[in-house]
């Protein structure tokens, strides 16, 4: 490991208190992210993706309890920092967030320029003029004309608002930007526009991204790394090329088989069943109930196994793979159609 990772997350846990018992939305997630890398977190709705984003920024709702684990940012465990220091030193200056509800993420009664410039004025004590100039530069970067600085959020279209929110996340030049479903509320053309902006920014600024999405096709354009989340856990973390070509976890294979492609002879498959409730996740492997390849050992909770360099899989099928699991995984490649029924 010659490049030290920028962000190292180990055993991250976040539990919500509900009337029906604790919900373990993030349950022992671990990964690392290098400088300039873009990691895509894929997963179904309700698998804990957004909770992961909140946990990383320590933005906890009132019913949250038990945020645990380690989040090391450039070697420093920021999860252990006192709240006030975390607010002043980490939020937005080092980790920024583009929220899922970007449409309503802007204060309706403050001009968008002010809102974008605000972190600079608060965290760096910049003057208004200086901060507004930087905001204008960031606007140009995301493709918004700088006379929009004087507008109010309701005067902007959805796509423009999304760009403004993106500009807000980039204005302090943070090391990590977390994007929580940044394009899910937008039409396809606007989505493509935003994704292009992200690609350009990644190339120009070298910012690290964590892109949370359920959209396999769009995310593949940006991803260097892919993390697949299922029922509060990462079931597979791999390089993007590796993941898309040779998914290792049965869920990953089924997921890839379910993505429609151009010039494809077979029909895309669907994954039968429902993800388990996070209220009382089943013992053993959480995907076992839907897995076509389950066997006796799946009753026990699988460990995380290495299936190659920087390739981790939480599945008993890979228990004996050491180092290069290339041939083994290839030999087990699932036929689309899934005989698991």
């Amino acid at each position, binding site marked *: 490991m010659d490049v030290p990772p920028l962000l190292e997350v180990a055993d991250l846990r976040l539990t919500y208190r509900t009337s029906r018992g604790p919900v373990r939305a993030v349950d022992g997630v671990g990964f690392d992210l290098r400088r300039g890398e873009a990691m895509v977190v894929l997963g179904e709705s309700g698998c804990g993706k957004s909770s992961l984003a909140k946990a990383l920024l320590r*933005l906890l709702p009132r019913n949250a309890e038990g945020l645990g684990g380690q989040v090391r940012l450039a070697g420093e465990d920021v999860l252990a920092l006192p709240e006030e220091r975390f607010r002043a030193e980490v939020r937005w200056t080092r980790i920024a967030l583009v929220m899922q509800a970007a449409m309503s993420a802007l204060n309706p009664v403050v001009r968008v320029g002010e809102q974008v410039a605000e972190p600079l004025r608060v965290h760096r004590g910049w003057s208004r003029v200086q901060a507004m100039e930087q905001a204008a*530069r960031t606007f140009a970067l995301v493709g918004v004309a*700088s006379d929009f600085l004087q507008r109010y959020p309701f005067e902007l279209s959805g796509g423009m608002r999304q760009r403004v929110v993106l500009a807000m996340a980039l204005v302090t030049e943070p090391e990590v930007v977390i994007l929580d479903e940044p394009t899910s509320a937008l039409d396809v053309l606007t989505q493509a526009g935003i994704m292009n902006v992200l690609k350009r920014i990644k190339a120009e600024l070298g910012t690290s991204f964590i892109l949370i999405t359920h959209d396999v096709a769009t995310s593949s354009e940006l991803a260097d790394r892919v993390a697949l989340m299922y029922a509060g856990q990462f079931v597979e973390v791999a390089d993007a090329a590796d993941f898309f070509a040779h998914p290792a976890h049965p869920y990953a294979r089924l997921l890839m088989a379910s993505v429609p492609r151009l010039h494809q002879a077979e029909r895309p498959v669907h994954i039968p069943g429902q993800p388990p409730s996070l209220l009382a996740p089943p013992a053993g492997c959480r995907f076992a109930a839907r897995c076509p390849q389950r066997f006796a050992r799946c009753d026990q909770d699988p460990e995380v196994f290495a299936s190659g360099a920087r390739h981790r899989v939480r599945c008993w099928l890979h228990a004996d793979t050491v180092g290069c699991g290339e041939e083994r995984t290839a030999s087990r490649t699932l036929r689309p159609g899934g005989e698991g029924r």
Partner: protein
Amino acid sequence: MSGSKADLTAGRRWPLRDLQRLALFMTRRVVALFFTVLVGVYLTIFFANMGGRVDELRLVQIRSTVAEQVRADSAFRDLASDERNALIEQRVGLEVERLRLDEPFIWRSLDYLNQAMRLDLGRAEQMHSDQGAREVYRIIAERLPATLLLFGTANLLVFFSSVWIALVLSRHYGSLWDRVVIALAPTSAAPGWYYGIFLILIFAFLIPILPAGGMVRVPPPEGTWAYAASLLRHMVLPVAAMFISSIFMAIYSWRTFFLIHSSEDYVEMARAKGLPPRLIERRYILRPTLSPIVTSFALMLIGLWGGAIILEKVFNWPGLGTLLFQAIGYRDTPVIIGSVVIFAYLLALTVLLLDILYAVLDPRVRLDKGGR
């Protein structure tokens, strides 16, 4: 980036655009409000006169008054009864002509409307001010300060303390104090006078440290300071009664209001941005919700106009509530109409003021309704 400087200054043109829209928007509102007041006042005139039925009562009253006068006058004692009756009829006819009771009510009502809209409130029929004036304007003006002082003090206290406490509680959702306030909210089901009775019982009779009622000591103390001190002592119990009866509900509803608005996405975004909590509270919670806060403040202020009939009675406070109660009892239509007309104008003025404030506070109102 040479163009960015010029673009930044472009913002200076915008206030002009805003002002134009604001002017147009206000003109429309003034016209609309004028008609609202017109309709409101006319309805009051119509109903206070019972659609003209009060005229019949008035006619009977005039007849008996005139008859009484004629009979009591020694100059007419020698007249024959039919001559006397003719005289009475003649005098009644004069009075009817003076009050134009022979015309249809509908025409006169329009005339009343015209006078009322020009704030020509006329003279009371039965009532008079403490100094003996019959002008409705004088009667109302005499009572107004007492009401404004008492209810203004109480309501301002309730408003500002409830908003402030609510903001603190919304930050400590689910804390002990939060739960205590929620538990106490139903105390507001009882009106102020109810608590007033107990307060009088305790602090004026069991532990006689405060006066039981009235506005100042009788006779009024000499000197401004002594007068003010006496006034203050008399205000303590009624203000306390009103405060107790409304504070917990007010805190509870503001707290809920702030809780709802502090879970807006942009508030969460502000937290993610690492803004200090005070700034979030000011710019992301209070600033966007200022319109409803100001609205409830303004409506509270004009609500003072009515006073409160029972509370004023319990504390023997010479305010507008008592006045209106008496006016209704006497069927003194000019006083009733006068006080409603002033209320209508105050309400319209407040609504207009609120409209302007909304436009100033909220760009969505300012830029949307100005016309496109």
